[in-house]
């Protein structure tokens, strides 16, 4: 019998091995991507501006 779609068995493929370190990296990248989507990729950090604290560059009493 010739090979047709209904009787063709795909060869089994081993799942690629992903190291624990890489897994963590991928999880982290997914987290960042989600985060970037949330914020709409608008810049990277805030500039600290609060009324009454405009001249504060450093605070030792947080």
């Amino acid at each position, binding site marked *: 019998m010739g090979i047709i779609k209904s009787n063709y068995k795909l060869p089994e493929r081993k799942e690629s091995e992903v190291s624990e370190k890489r897994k963590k990296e991928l999880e982290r990248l997914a987290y960042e991507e989600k*985060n970037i989507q949330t914020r709409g990729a608008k*810049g*990277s950090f805030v*500039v600290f501006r609060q009324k009454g604290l*405009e001249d504060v560059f450093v605070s030792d009493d*947080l």
Partner: protein
Amino acid sequence: MSSNFKFLQEGTFAMLDLWMYNFSRNMQDIIKADSVRMLNPLLNSSNITNHNPKGTAIVIGAGPSVTEKNHLEMLIDSKYQGAIICTDKMLVKCLKNGITPDRFKEFFVISIDPYLDTELFYKDPIIKEFNGKINAIMSTCVSPSVIENCKYNETPVYWFHPLIDDFRKPNSINKIMNIMAKGDKNPKGLPGLQTGGNVGTTGWVFSWTILGKAATSLIGMNLGYNENDKIEETQHFKELLKITDNDVEASKKHYRIIENKELNCKVLIDPVFDFYREAFCDLVTRTPKWVKTINSTEGGSIFGENIELMKFKQFLNRFSK
């Protein structure tokens, strides 16, 4: 305050969960950490206006002018002995060009961005060659993988909190972060620093608030593009496409050209650089009288009140022993 400023400021605060994700995972290191205050124990936020300054620092940003103007070569050929403050992106490039802690005794690198890819700036094997000599200045919100790389490279880490909210209020996030950071080594916790939204500006703040340097020179701090650069190829264009639903023309409308009359050049800026520029130019006007800010980038968008423009060669001649 420009519309760009509001637009970006509101958007970036949504990153809070990423900062806290990093902060919590850095806690074990933070609790037994060295504070940036250890680098100059005599200076604090109370005596900063009466500070009697000495010394200079150079903040090295990653803007295109640093290559176009051969500033790294000029620096290595000079007799300059002051502090070097590298933005993280420039660390490896500096080391590979001979700008090393063996040549400059006060050598710092700074990171503030919370993203994982910041760790790549600390992966090159050349960093380990200078173990113990490069001082890493770290925001408590950087990715923990950056700290892991610093440990591998045996780089001493000095910590600060990025200022993000009104710490006078009892429910302030900064206040809570600092309560958690208190330990035997730092009974009062860590200082909070204004970051200006980017690592270059943080370097400038660090130079005078922590090191107490009298004059800080900026190189590679363009915060903008050359007038004729293609907008589609600029650093933040893809980000803008995301917020305009891939509308190229709408994205382009967010850009504008400003004229730097002091350098007689035009600079293309996007909303992100516009935001950083506006913040920086405002911050400079609020510094104590003893702070001297010298922009030696020889291009870019940083100019205005309290900012002295000086060619880098001239700065090196004037401030080298």
